[in-house]
């Protein structure tokens, strides 16, 4: 599998041991390397990433146990084997507890060393293979989600596209009743499309992908773009959008794609459940180590008994009549999951008939924080 010869490093202060081990290693067809103390050995491990390391337990300077601990911090896939003096089984046991794969006692025969090396390299091969399979599986899982959702969406989108063309009269005249049915079919399919998208989001969320994608992000910039995006449709219903924020933009530790989704969901809810002449105000507040983004509306509000449940999956408050497409009931639960994956939180206050206010707390980007400031985890 690995085309290069296995590299085996010997760390021992005795020159005779280094030389004899190296000879045996080379005879077995492997690459030997050696270091006469712990510090030198660790440097070589960092640079060359050997497959296996033989470490003498008793050396001047860093002793074998210390070296053992540091090896694992550098590369946990390296196989460490300790060399112990005659009659010091106790220290060998301690070394095994500290993560050594095996031990070999001085004086040892070439055959004993060869056996130990063979077993160690076999172990190394297994570890690397497992690691590779694990990585492959992860990539496959991620691609699988994307692939399946693409294949579910493609037919729906193709049908919707035909409907668009028919409804635009580009495929001949359409009777009123037919147009009505096609329009309804189209709305139902849009609902299905939303469900597929939401399902995809939840599947992705469970993989813990967000945490790896966090980087400093200008939050005001993001909110401004979303407001500009929703403004035209909101104005059609005479709903006014505005932003209140300090002139300075704040950097949060965030993932653009998913945060966009959170605020897009909150703002579109605030617009959809509003009243004509109402308003949606987004307020960005600076806290010491976090930024709070509040989305306030003057809409119909949420009854007290529903409030604790609105972040649950598939929970829907049937509160708007004549709504074209039913919501999937997943939007807020996805938003909550996204915010939690950012190490933030989401809260709601609402009064029936007056409006609701959702506030999202997000940790500031590390660059924005004072280095000396104590780190607290926001929950």
């Amino acid at each position, binding site marked *: 599998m690995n085309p290069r010869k296995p590299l085996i490093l010997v760390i021992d202060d005795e020159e005779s041991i280094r030389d004899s081990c190296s000879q045996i290693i080379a005879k077995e067809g492997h690459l030997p390397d050696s270091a006469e103390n712990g510090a030198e050995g660790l440097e070589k491990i960092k640079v060359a990433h050997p497959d296996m390391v033989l470490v003498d337990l008793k050396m001047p300077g860093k002793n074998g146990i210390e070296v053992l601990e540091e090896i694992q911090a550098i590369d946990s896939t390296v196989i460490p084997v300790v060399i112990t003096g005659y009659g010091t089984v106790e220290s060998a046991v301690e070394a095994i507890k500290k993560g050594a794969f095996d031990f070999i006692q001085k004086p040892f025969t070439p055959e004993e060393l060869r056996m130990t090396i063979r077993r160690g390299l076999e172990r190394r091969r297994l570890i690397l293979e497992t690691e590779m399979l694990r990585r492959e599986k992860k990539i496959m899982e991620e691609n699988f989600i994307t692939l399946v959702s693409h294949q579910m*969406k493609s037919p729906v*989108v*193709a049908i*919707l*596209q035909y409907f668009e063309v028919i409804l*635009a009269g*580009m495929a001949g005249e359409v009777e009123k009743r037919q147009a009505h049915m096609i329009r309804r079919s189209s709305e139902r399919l849009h609902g299905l499309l939303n469900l597929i998208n939401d399902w995809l989001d939840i599947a992705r969320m469970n993989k813990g992908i967000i945490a790896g994608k966090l980087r400093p992000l200008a939050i005001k910039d993001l909110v401004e773009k979303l407001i500009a995006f929703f403004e035209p449709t909101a104005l059609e219903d005479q709903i006014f959008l505005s932003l209140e924020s300090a002139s300075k933009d704040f950097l949060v530790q965030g993932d*653009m794609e998913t945060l*966009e989704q959170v605020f897009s969901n909150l703002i579109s809810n605030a617009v959809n459940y509003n009243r004509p002449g109402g308003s949606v105000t987004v307020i960005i507040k600076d806290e010491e180590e976090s930024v709070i983004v509040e989305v306030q509306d003057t809409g119909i509000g949420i009854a007290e008994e529903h409030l604790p449940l609105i972040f649950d999956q598939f929970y829907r408050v049937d509160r708007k009549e004549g709504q074209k497409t039913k919501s999937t009931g997943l939007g807020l639960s996805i938003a909550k999951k996204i915010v939690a994956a950012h190490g933030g939180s989401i809260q709601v206050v609402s009064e029936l008939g007056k409006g609701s206010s959702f506030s999202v707390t997000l940790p500031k980007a590390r660059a924005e924080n004072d280095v000396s400031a104590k780190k607290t985890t926001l929950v």
Partner: protein
Amino acid sequence: MDKKKATILIIDDDPDFLDAVSSIIASAHYNVSTALDPKGGKEKIYSEKPDLILLDIMMDSLFDGFSLCHSIKTSKEFSQTPVIFVSAVKEQTGSRFRFEGAEQGMRGPDDYIDKPINPDDLLSRIEKLLPKEKR
């Protein structure tokens, strides 16, 4: 006075989608050309020299659309040809407001449009991007 109408190339791996969008383009009396994959798309670009390209981002691989766009935009002959990215909402890797490939030095499109496409919206975006004499 007869004006020479523009040729629009649509590259998408869904034949039904191509069929539907072709009728939108044809309704505005543009010449329509189609391709089902990036390779076929490239050939049509050279053979028909389209005035505008509608490009599906997500074909066989997620990066097909992106890399084809990049090679169009960095080519000598077609760097000025407008490209509109087409994708089902949220299907693209990045944000819907931003072409993230720019970070890796990739050249982005001139516009984005979501599937399913609204016919009027598509036609007005096409008109905006075409040179005046071809509209």
